[in-house]
């Protein structure tokens, strides 16, 4: 699970890319935290400004794709700009141990949290060791 939860954005490894020719939208790969706990893998992505309805998460051929869009709320002339409302796009390769049908997602305060439960066979099992003297 560890090795395979990697971004698929590396050179020559991109399985599908967003169409850039006809769209002026700019894409930013959002920063993510990934951790594993209680037989699930959690992916938390910072998507500040993204509208809830615009977020799409899908899994195809073992690749998790997350996309989101944010609308500009400009009210006047920009005097100083360090960020802009952008679209987000990032892909991760999933290992086969993720139960794809049970993935859930929450969005709160600009953070998208994906819960990826492990498949039954990948769960850790405790094995009791009997030591007989």
């Amino acid at each position, binding site marked *: 699970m*560890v090795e395979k939860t990697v971004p698929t954005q590396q050179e020559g490894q991109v399985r599908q890319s967003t169409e850039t020719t006809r769209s002026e939208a700019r894409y930013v790969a959002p920063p993510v935290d*990934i951790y594993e706990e209680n037989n699930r893998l959690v992916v938390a992505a910072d998507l*500040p400004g993204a*509208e809830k309805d615009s977020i799409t998460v899908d899994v195809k051929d073992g690749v998790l794709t997350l996309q989101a869009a944010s609308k500009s709320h400009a*009210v006047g*002339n920009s*005097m100083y700009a*360090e960020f802009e409302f952008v679209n987000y796009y990032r892909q991760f390769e999933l290992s086969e141990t993720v139960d794809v049908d049970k993935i859930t997602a929450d969005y709160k305060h600009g953070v998208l949290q994906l819960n990826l439960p492990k498949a039954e066979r990948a769960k850790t099992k405790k094995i009791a060791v009997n030591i007989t003297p």
Partner: protein
Amino acid sequence: MTRVPVVRNRNPWYEPFDLMNRLFSRWSPVQRQDKEEDDFFAPLLRDFPFDFGGSPAVDVEENDQEIVVRAEMPGMEKDEFSIELEDDTLILRGEKKYQDEHKDRNVHRVECRYGRFDRRITLPTSIQADKASAEYKNGVLNITLPKSETARRKAIAVHVK
């Protein structure tokens, strides 16, 4: 544990505000997993004010009526940050806590920013502090500061003789 820089439109030549503001914007990137390392580096990083990439990214916009300051700070709760006004300076303070109380967590990747920030923004005109309002939505803080009467733009009628 990589810190991935997100592409930002940061033009150092277009900054109407004092560069000193940036220097005093403090940030302690608490992006570590093990406690020992945290205890050792945290005081050093907290006192190191030259981390330009740290504090929340800010946009400032202006129209005839108001100044709008926007800060990108995803994943925070309402009680984790504060906004203060001191004359013509807007002070944005807060701390995004790294949830490391979960001991059974196996961390693979930490790219999101955590830690304390203290950002001071000098406002370009005088404002009506008592009419200021703020809204936090989708991880973006929107602060609306109505300009004071004297700072508003007024059209001057020209009489051509």
